[in-house]
């Protein structure tokens, strides 16, 4: 897969799936902008690891919920590389995935929903608007939004998180319709429970085992499994796919 010379912005790339996606892009020759919010040390580790392997990456701190910060990040990427070929909307507002302590339908507040909508949907909206002029000018571009297979099967009902991701999936399909004319594809990738990541650490063994039992491929997803599909959508092989959601969960849903 040749992504040499492609410029890819991955939001929330300091750890977990975001970091795996960033590393995978770099390994295929892309220049990666590693965006992070708080965890500078981890983000710096990702950049250094990429550079050690001969890849190219830069670090950029920005809150995706802040238009000005995202605007500056994108402008800085343009100043450095002249273009952005691919945006991966991976960041979300902080969330703890714990089946035991999750909020129930009768215990959750609107603020919880708002917080997740701000991170997943509004963050993706802001980053998309920021890169759009450059992709339109090039007549091509790839936008990949990270959602979840919980939309199809809320095996653990994380109301606020999953609802916000479902909104992001709606955003994806609508965006694909309008942006296709400009040669820009917009797709979603829906991972199943991915282990190990910081987010999934608190998902107990029994839940993990239950999911594995129901999964045709008989294991949980790993971050690299997710990255492979993202790379496919960003690559020339994925050029005629848009408005799609690809589930990467070993066949669970």
């Amino acid at each position, binding site marked *: 897969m040749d992504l040499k010379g492609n410029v890819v912005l991955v939001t929330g790339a300091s750890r977990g799936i975001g970091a795996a996606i960033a590393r995978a892009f770099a390994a295929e020759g892309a220049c990666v902008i590693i965006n992070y919010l708080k965890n500078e040390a981890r983000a710096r580790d990702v950049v250094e690891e990429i550079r050690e392997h001969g890849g190219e990456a830069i670090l950029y701190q920005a809150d995706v919920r802040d238009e000005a910060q995202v605007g500056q990040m994108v402008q800085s990427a343009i100043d450095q590389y002249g273009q952005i070929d691919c945006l991966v909307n991976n960041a979300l507002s902080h969330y703890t995935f714990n089946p035991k302590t999750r909020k129930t339908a009768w215990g959750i507040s609107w603020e919880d929903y708002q917080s997740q909508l701000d991170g997943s949907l509004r963050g993706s909206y802001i980053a998309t608007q920021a890169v759009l002029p450059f992709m*339109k*000018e090039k*007549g091509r571009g790839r936008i990949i939004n990270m959602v979840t297979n919980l939309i199809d099967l809320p095996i653990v009902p994380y109301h606020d998180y999953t609802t916000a991701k479902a909104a992001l999936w709606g955003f994806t399909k609508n965006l694909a319709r309008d942006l296709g*004319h*400009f040669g820009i594809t917009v797709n979603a990738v829906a991972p199943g429970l991915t282990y190990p990541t910081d987010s999934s650490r608190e998902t107990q063994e029994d839940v993990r085992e239950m999911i594995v039992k129901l999964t045709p491929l008989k294991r949980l997803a790993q971050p690299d499994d997710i990255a492979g599909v993202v790379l496919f959508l960003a690559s020339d092989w994925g050029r005629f796919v848009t408005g799609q959601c690809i589930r990467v969960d070993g066949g669970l849903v």
Partner: protein
Amino acid sequence: MSGVSEVLSMYRVPREVSITECHEENIETEQGSFTLKYPVLSPEIVVDAARKAQNARDVYLAHLPLMEVVEKIDRAIQKWLDPDYPLRRWAEALLPILTGYHSDIIRLELKRYMRNFRKKELLRFLDEEFDHPGMLDGFRPRKSGGMSRAYGPHMIFHVFSGNVPGVQVWSLIMGLLVKSAALGKTSLAEPLMPVLFSMSLAEIDERLAESIVILPWKGGEVELEAKAMEACEALIVYGSDETVEAYRHRVPIEKRFLSYGHKISLAMVGKEALTADRYEDTLHRLAADIAIYDQQSCLAPQMVYVESGGVITPKDFSQLLACELERYEKKWPRSALSHEEAMAIHKMRNQAVFAAINGADVNVYMSEMNTAWTVIFHRKADFSGSPLNRTIHVFAVDDLETAAETLTRFRRYLQSCGLAVGPERLFSLSERLGTCGLNRICAIGEMNRAKPGWHHDGRFNLLDLVRFVDIERTAEMLAEQYDPDVE
């Protein structure tokens, strides 16, 4: 490849004219191999063929009732509207190779074009220009008194261009409607369709087809052209300004001379065509006007004025048009270019990129690695011709009415305007465009398809060819007095 092997003469002469020497070209097509025979011509052959065609016309075509001529042309056209008609299949196999246009474009546009000449459309051509088409058969009364009859030339020398396949058929049919013999000089770029069409006429009526001569030669063969000019009563020249001028200087003053030289067409898109529900269709239509026959027709747009105020800006429009042209390239790749044509595109691109670097309000969108398509976006309205072959200028304008006024300077060249505006502006804008010198307003998406009865370059199709003979009322009255039975 199937095993079919055809030998096809790329000329047509009356039966008694002998052409002894030809050079041959072999072409492999999806339908099999063709040997195309090009005649080695001499002035004597041109003279002999022209004389015999004119004789055939004088003794037969000149006396055929107009409606019979119409019927016969219609029957030939009906053959072409049958997808299995062998000559149509030959055309569909050979034209993509001879011209370089994609076979789908040829297949679609050729049949659409031929539909322009069904009987009902031929009647439209005639009714459009003659109060009494019967004037071409004999004297007919006039509203102002007296009688008139229209005579077509004994022979018309058609100098065809080769840019768009089949376009020569229009000129041949107009000549037949005024009962003229034809001497058609084809371009080596597209010598096929006049020959095939005259073969179809011969299948319907061999005597009629005897009035038609089709000969291919490279422009500038002065001796051949001199003989052709001597033989004809009228000339119709299609081509570049240079071609037209080359003939105009040589044609004897008593001959009728009609020319269709270099013209520029453009498109105008109003903000009402750029609403969220309409813009896709608007873009698709304009891209088709650019992609069909690679703007080689003078009917195709070389620039488009796009109004601000829609949901997509003129710059968005340029970006979207670029993407649409890229998709056309995947669907119907542009024809291969000569070195000169490609250089013209590179030169224009370089100038635009250089201007952009120097601060001009210009953005350049172009296909990578080749010259397949180019869109040059200008924030400031201007006028700029295109090197063609899917290269277009987009000018942002605040309102189309103001832009229209700036066109007056170029009236000498203006021809068609593809228009996408609402009904309340159609007439007021057309008035302005007409004043500026444009002579055809059509829908975008239809720019390459002039309709039967249109005023070609603002003129007539048939009336310009004929001469009228009037019997004045006084002659009628006086004749009455000499009636032996007069009171």
